[in-house]
């Protein structure tokens, strides 16, 4: 009896592991920056390059930092979600126009609407590297102490927002 059961058990264990493996997305690389201070930067604002924005300016507030670009196709999908969020006035969203031409970024916001409190431009992608960005869009939830609490890799959907991001934001704001 044992000689039949043992191979079967081994097969089932393997099958379970392989099945779990099917559901994993290797493109979602967990960020080591979670629960670490958001890397500092000072970038020129997209609309007024003579002025700068830095994450330190946001101390005491919970906020979202969204990396986007006018050349990014997936950002078009995400855009209406942020537009709706901006109207609700729950949490301020700041944008980083990643590896983009200033005019293109400005035109993109002019044509599609601007959900961001402010956008800065990271023309050579240096700040992106500092944040571990490897593809736009990516969105970070940053708490009142300036610590990264969550990273959304890829498009923020209504579902992500409802199930993950907004509950987390509410929890962090209550602190």
């Amino acid at each position, binding site marked *: 009896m044992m000689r039949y059961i043992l191979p079967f058990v081994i097969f089932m264990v393997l099958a379970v592991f392989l099945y779990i493996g099917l559901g994993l997305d290797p*493109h979602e*690389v*967990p960020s080591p920056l979670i629960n670490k201070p958001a890397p500092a930067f000072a970038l020129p604002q997209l609309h007024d390059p003579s002025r700068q924005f830095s994450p330190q300016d946001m101390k005491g507030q919970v906020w979202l930092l969204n990396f986007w670009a006018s050349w990014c196709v997936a950002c078009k999908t995400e855009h209406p979600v942020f537009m709706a969020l901006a109207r609700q006035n729950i949490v301020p969203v700041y944008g980083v126009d990643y590896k983009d031409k200033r005019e293109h970024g400005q035109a993109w916001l002019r044509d599609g609407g601007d959900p961001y409190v402010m956008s800065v431009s990271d023309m050579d992608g240096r700040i992106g590297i500092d*944040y571990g960005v*490897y*593809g736009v869009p990516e969105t970070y939830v940053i708490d009142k102490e300036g610590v990264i609490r969550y990273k959304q890799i890829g498009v923020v959907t209504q579902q992500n927002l409802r199930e993950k991001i907004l509950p987390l934001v509410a929890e962090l704001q209550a602190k």
Partner: protein
Amino acid sequence: MKNLLLLLFCLLPVFSYAGEAKDLAEDPVLEKRMIGLAENLRCLVCQNESLASSRSELAEDLRREVREQMTKGMTDREIIDYLVSRYGDFVLLDPPVKSYTLLLWYGPFALLLAGLAGLVFQLRKRNNKVSEARLSAEDEQRAAAMLNPPNGHGE
């Protein structure tokens, strides 16, 4: 005057090309060191390619970053630590031995040991089952008759 302009115009591509190629040729020693380092790092966009061989834009940016950090005098270890602090252990093509990679590193050896143990166990069990059997005199005669047929038919 017109000819001179024409000549300058012809030279235009030469100048623009020089601008693009500068990056690589600037310091061959540094470039070699950068490539050596990048060969052990993973490109996050095309995940099974190394940072040295990937043509993705992010890989280009990261190579530039590595190059710059080397110019600043950072050691290979410091640069790798910087990238790991941004992108995680996933950027290392050679995963470090940590508590959660123990299975990865030592799992195969554990399997091998388990297999050997199983084999030894099975062989011992079989050894006990096989009893030394003695042939009876009658069987011995039959066997001898089969091995040496009287008419030599089998040869």
